[in-house]
Each structure stands twice: as structure tokens, then as C-alpha cells.
């Protein structure tokens, strides 16, 4: 168990910057998920924490110890890889003890740890089998077991579920969450899947183009995205955005004016007349016949029925498409004009730089 501190971390390959001044502090026992689109630098960051890739600048501290120059095995980390990376020529038991042999763990202790991990992960029956005889889910558990026996200060997971099928992904996700509850260890987990991020994380780190966009609890990210990128990335289907500008300021209230929705007022704060704005509303917050400042009209183009909800794709006045979630059996028909309203806490306004403005 340990904390992890990353300060001014940079990574460049020639002229390309992969990570740009990343700062992150992870507490003891915290489950942190790094999430972002592919190429955002999240896997590189994880590999740099592991010591598999070197940094171009900046410091990494694990358990308050500077580990910049330490080899992966000396950092007190264990890593679970996307492809499981089990040694194909060793059985499950050897896969788990192999690393311990080289770090000077005595044989009896090795056996004790393997037995403990095998019990925890239900691997007892599989210890003498070879990776080729295991299913994807079993291999994944062995890979996790191999990490556990190292008794690391920090666990690193690199997209561990992306090679599993959908059903197994859900059950393994639950297992990882249970494991974290049991081991109370610090975990850094990389994924591009926001459902994994939302369900597993104590805190989510949203990354984009080598920078951290926002760090926060899953629901904070959902309800109070710090900027346009996070607003668009978290949530499915993605948040609807409407272009707007400050139409006028009167008595400390700014008028948000746009073509595709009814104008509404919000606290002016530092806004000036003519400032460009973006209004964001999630599909699930748009309701028919509700009350709230935000009101938009659209002609239904298509309805996707998922069962517990349906998604209506609507054409706005300016010709673009936005999405609204419709609950219940009564779904609007294509061609119908629908008026949708969103309540005040669910209407997000972003300034010209894409940063959130308090509404």
C-alpha cells in the first residue's frame, strides 16, 4: 500500500509530445482510472509509472520515494497487461512464482503467496495447467494472480478487460472491484471504456492529447464536467452541444442567446456581451413537458429503442441533430415535432475556451 505522486512529467518522442506536464497525486489505497481516447497518453503514463518507458522530464514518487531511475522490479509495482502476457512455456504456478524467484523470495514464502492468491482468484484447480489450456477469463485471473503474489505497493492495470467478451467483462469488472475492497491496495487502471472507469474508480483522470483534462469522482465528472472535452467524453450517448453567445447583461444576469433553443438567463459573473458560449445538455436530462430554463424544439428523425429507454434523434432548427432520452413505452414517432426542457442544474454552459461557467 502506498501513495503515488507524479510531478511535471513529460514524454517526448523527437518532436512529438506524448505527455505534457502531467501532475497527479494518488492517495494510499485509492483506485484511480486513467481514461481517454486512444493516443491520449494514458498507456504511456502507466508504462512510465511502471518504469517500462523512461521520462523526458519530471518525477515519479512511489511511497514517498523517488523512483525515476529504478528498474520496474525495484519500484514496488505489479502490472497486468492487456494481452495477459503469461509465459506460454510455464504452468500457472510457475507463471506466478517466476518473478519471485529472481527477487529473492524464499520457496516456502512463494508457495504461501501462490496458495493465498489462488484461493482469492479461484485458481487452485488450474495451478498445474498451461496458459494454452485456459480460457480468456482464467488467463486474466492468472495475470492478476501473478501481480498479487508480488505484494506490490501499487497495482497497474493496462486495459485488462478489453480482450474479454462482453459478459465476462462485466463479471471480471466486479471481481476487480471486490479485489480492491479486499486488498485495499493502490490501483492505477487504464481503460478507454467509460463504463469501466465510472464503475471502478474512486477517482477518474480524464486525459486528452497528453494532458490531464480533469480529475474527480465519477459522479462529479458526470454532473460537473470542467470543460467541453470531459463533458463530451463522459456519458453515453454524448452530451448535446448548442452554440450560443451572450446576448445582453442586465442586473447581474447574462442572457444566453442561440438559434436552436429558447434564450435563458444565468449569472453574469465575468461574462461580457458578445462572448461566444456553448450550452451542453445530456440526452437523459431532456424531458418532454418538464420545467426549466432550457427549451429546445426538434423534429424526430429516428428512434432507437433499448428497452429501459429509447433515444430520439431530433433535427434542430439549424439543421443539426441532437439526442434525447425518452423513458416509457410512449416514444415519439418520426416526423413529430417535440419540445424538450432541461432543469437548471443539468444545463452546462462553457465559455469560448471550453471551460465551464457556473450557471
Amino acid at each position: 500500500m502506498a501513495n503515488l505522486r507524479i510531478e511535471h512529467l513529460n514524454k517526448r518522442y523527437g518532436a512529438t509530445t506524448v505527455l505534457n506536464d502531467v501532475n497527479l497525486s494518488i492517495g494510499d489505497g485509492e483506485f484511480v482510472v486513467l481514461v481517454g481516447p486512444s493516443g491520449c497518453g494514458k498507456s504511456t503514463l502507466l508504462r512510465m509509472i511502471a518504469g517500462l518507458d523512461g521520462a523526458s522530464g519530471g518525477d515519479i514518487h512511489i511511497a514517498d520515494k523517488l523512483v525515476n531511475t529504478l528498474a520496474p522490479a525495484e519500484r514496488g509495482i505489479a502490472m497486468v497487461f492487456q494481452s495477459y502476457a503469461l509465459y506460454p512455456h510455464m504452468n500457472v504456478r510457475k507463471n506466478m512464482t517466476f518473478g519471485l524467484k529472481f527477487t529473492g523470495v524464499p520457496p516456502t514464502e512463494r508457495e504461501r503467496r501462490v496458495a493465498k492468491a489462488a484461493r482469492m482468484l479461484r485458481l487452485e484447480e488450474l495451478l498445474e495447467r498451461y496458459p494454452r489450456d485456459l480460457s480468456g477469463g482464467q488467463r486474466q485471473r492468472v495475470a492478476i494472480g501473478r501481480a498479487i503474489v508480488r505484494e506490490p505497493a501499487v497495482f497497474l492495470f493496462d486495459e485488462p478487460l478489453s480482450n474479454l467478451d462482453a459478459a465476462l467483462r462485466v463479471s471480471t469488472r466486479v471481481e476487480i472491484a471486490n479485489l480492491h475492497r479486499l486488498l485495499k491496495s493502490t490501483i492505477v487502471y487504464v481503460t478507454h471504456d467509460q463504463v469501466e472507469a465510472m464503475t471502478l474508480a474512486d477517482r477518474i483522470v480524464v486525459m486528452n492529447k497528453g494532458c490531464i483534462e480533469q480529475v474527480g469522482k465519477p459522479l462529479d465528472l458526470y454532473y460537473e464536467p470542467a470543460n467541453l472535452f470531459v463533458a463530451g467524453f463522459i456519458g453515453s450517448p454524448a452530451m448535446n452541444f448548442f452554440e450560443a453567445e451572450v446576448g445582453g447583461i442586465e442586473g447581474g444576469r447574462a442572457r444566453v442567446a442561440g438559434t436552436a433553443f429558447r434564450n435563458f438567463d444565468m449569472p453574469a459573473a465575468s461574462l461580457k456581451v458578445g462572448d461566444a458560449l456553448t450550452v451542453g445538455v445530456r440526452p437523459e436530462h431532456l424531458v418532454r413537458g418538464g420545467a426549466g430554463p432550457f427549451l429546445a424544439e426538434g423534429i424526430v428523425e429516428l428512434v432507437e429503442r433499448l428497452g429501459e429507454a429509447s433515444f430520439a434523434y431530433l433535427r434542430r432548427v439549424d439543421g443539426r441533430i441532437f439526442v434525447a432520452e425518452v423513458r416509457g413505452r410512449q416514444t415519439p414517432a418520426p416526423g413529430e415535432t417535440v419540445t424538450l426542457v432541461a432543469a437548471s442544474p443539468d444545463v452546462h454552459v462553457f465559455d469560448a475556451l471550453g471551460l465551464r461557467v457556473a450557471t
Partner: protein
Amino acid sequence: MPEPLSNITVQMPRAKLAGLLLFFLGPAVAIYSLFSIYPLVATMALSTYTSDPSGARSFVGLANFETLLGDALWSKPFWNALGNNLIFFAVHMCVQNPIGIALAGLLSLPGVRLKGFYRTVMFLPTMLSVVIVGFSWNLILSPLWGVAAGALKAVGLGSLFAPWLGLESSALVTLSLMSVWQFVGIPMMLIYAALLNIPEELIDAARVDGLGQFRIFFHIKLPLVLPTISLVSVLTFVANFNAFDLIYSVKGALAGPNFTTDILGTFFYRTFFGNQLQLGNPTMGAAVATVMFFIILLGLCLYLFLVQRRIRRYAF
């Protein structure tokens, strides 16, 4: 009746199916039969004949083989050539293949610069003609005008120089090493390709497990490329027991000094075509060729049944 493999072939008229088979399999079967199977069978048949001075041939059964293995005049050079051939093979296995593996291991290390350059340079001799290689080394090692003596003297090792190619004790090993120098690129390339096949994440996992590059090579990479190493061994075996050109171009058909570099290839050549005072004897030559064929066949069978079955290929 066995399950038909495909409905298409079942529904096809017989004549059309036969035509299709002929079209796809015919060329390969014809070429293979003409250039591989027919010569082999013809050689074996020829080895059961003998010819009298007039040139007329008569069937003698296995008499040629009795002569070859029983008559001291034939059996002594035969066993000498076989023994030399085994030494030739042993040098390749002990020097060429380990060096090839080591070079491949070095090339596959992360962060090696000019990989392509080294790879090409080390593979270059393989593409040279054996005659050129033999001639060049002959010149290099010549005690009269070769550069080897001078080069050794320049680094203070002049006393080590000897006319290696001319000494009975060292000629065979010297020739073997020349062949190793030429062909080391082949094991290197094959094993290098196999090493590239090992996923990067597996190496990363070993690094996280605390292994250095040296241990990663011996504990992870080497066991995973064992199938390729055994393939290389078979290729080496077949090539070595069919070797002829290097000895012939450096030492001539007499494989001197005093037959110490005589291998099965050169022995066969003298028997079949004759050399200087020895008259060519096609029927005895065919017997030698048949024995060579069975030696290689035996080696391959041993390999297939004892080694190949125990080696597992890993899918990553």
C-alpha cells in the same frame, strides 16, 4: 464412406473433378516426379548394377554395398569421409548455430542502432558464391602471400600462425569454420525472425518480474524459439551431409592433405566421375549416393521421432 470434404466436389461431374485435380496438382506432381523422385529411384536402381570393362551392365543385387562396406579398399575411405562429415557437422552445430543464436539475440535487444546494417552485413557472405568464399579464404590463409600471418603479427600473435589449410590436424576444422563464417547468417535470420514474433508485452512482463535482458533471453526468449532452433539444426544437418562445393573449390577432389578433408560429397564425386588415376564408376557412385541418402533419411527420422514430437510451438 468418409465424410465428403465439400459439397461442391460431391456435386461435380467426375470428369470435371478429375480435370480440376489435374489442373491444380498436375504441374507440381510432374515437376517433383521428374526432378526428384525419378532421379532418386534411378540412382537406387543403378546402384544394383555393375559394369564390365566393355561398358555392359549387369544386375548384381546388393553386391555394390557389400563392396563399399566390406572391401577395405572402399570401406576405409568411406568411413573416413563419414567421420570427417560428422566432424564437419559438429563444428557447425557447436559454432555456427550458437553464434547465430547469439547474434539474433543481440539484434533483438531494444535500442540497438543500425540493426538493418548489421543484419545485412552478417548475411552478406551467405549470398556469395562458395567458390569465391573458398578462393578468398585460401588467399587470406596462404602462408606465402596471405594477410593472416601479417595480421596476427601486427597484434603480436605472429607465433600462433600456422598453414592451417595445409596441416592434416587442422585442415578440416579450418574448412568447417570457413563454411560457418559463410552461412552463420541463415540461423541468425531465422532465429531473429522467431524472436521478433515474441510479443513485446511478454518481455515487459518479464521486466516487471525483475529479469534483466540476459535472463529474459535465457528464460523467456530462448525456450520460445526452440522450435526454430531445432529447424535450423535439421537444415544444418542436411546441408552438411550434402556439402561438396567448398572442399572441392579449396582442396580439389582429392580433399587433401591425405584425405583429411574428405567428406561424403567429395568421396562420391571421385567415385562417380573418377579423378586423376581413379576411373569413374557410375554404379559404385550410385551406391555411395544411395548410402548418403539413407544416412540423411536416418538422421531426419531420428529428429522427427525423438525431437520434433517433444517440441511444442507456442501461439501468442
